[in-house]
């Protein structure tokens, strides 16, 4: 079980995780990214930014 870096909730480990895989925290809804595998470490996934063409 990993921990959400935003709200500290338990986040269930995905099957066969890969670095860069995206997960969602059930409690705070934050999109999380698998940063490291052993041990499993999660970080906030970067948010897509709008490009307004400027």
């Amino acid at each position, binding site marked *: 079980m990993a921990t959400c870096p935003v709200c500290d909730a338990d986040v269930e480990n995905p099957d066969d995780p890969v670095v860069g895989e995206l997960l969602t925290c059930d*409690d*705070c809804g934050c999109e999380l990214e698998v940063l490291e595998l052993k041990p499993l470490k999660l970080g906030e996934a970067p948010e897509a930014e709008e490009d307004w063409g400027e």
Partner: protein
Amino acid sequence: MKVSIAGGSGYAGGDLLRILLFHPEVEIVQVTSERHAGKLVTTVHPNLRKLTKLKFCPASELEPCDVLFTGLPHGHVMGRLAEFEALAPVLIDLSADFRMNNSDDYEKWYGKPHSCPQHLQDFVYGIPELHREQMRGAKRISGAGCNATATILALHPLFSEGLVESTVVEVKAGSSQGGNASSDASHHPERSGAVRSYKPTGHRHLAEIHQELDADIPVHFSATSIEMVRGLLATCHVFLNRQLTDKDMWKLYRKYYGDEPFIRIVKERSGIHRYPEPKLVAGSNYCDIGFELDPHSNRLVVMCAIDNLMKGAAGQAVQAFNIAHGFEETTGLQFPGLHPV
């Protein structure tokens, strides 16, 4: 279980009917209204067409039942308590008559003496999240005020842990809080589009708020009427007495409410519904609570959204009824609000 409703023509009475008609453990026997006696309840609550053939009767025709819900205006039940007690072993009152624990507080906030102060202690205050154990087997339950419910549930974890230096609460309220009797203030050209300071100070629900939070510091409270029919949003500005982090707040609210069937912690980092909104709980018994810490001060903002007629009245009363009788707490209440509305 045979259930009757004394005072079923108001908006809270209508929602009680809407819930109890689908409650698997309940048979609604009688619904009273003096003004509408003899008419089908669907003449007043048209959303219940094809669901019931019940007619309103006068209170004088009430027969004994197992549970009597009372949805009468404030001041009526305390004047007729003996009459109602003779009809049913269990009373659940939605008015403000038995919310206070002592008669001095009642007189201070309601401006007149209580007519049966010896019975104030008989009633359990009706917020299950605070009084669940007292509700089991209870024979007398008092519904909680709607603004008070939202404010108390928002602040309860913080007061329980002694984290509050001071707090100011602003409630934005829908028009159904005013009941179904019309007035100059509710006349459509006056009420529509209003952002009206209704009670900047001195709101009666403060009495319950102080009592239930066991607050030894003042809770400041203002209410504003806005363009909304159902629902309210309580925005609580809490000045903390120590430095806390977002994770601390998550842990705190999860500790108090993580297992609560009707409380949802709503704090999302993206999307358009990041914090509680009354629209999203309209018609349901859910209470959505969210928070945000001001990174530049010790201010925590806690937002709480409920439907004033549901978690703030009829829904919470049925939740309490379920607990009192040993039914699954969510019976008859397991439906979300509508989206979109």
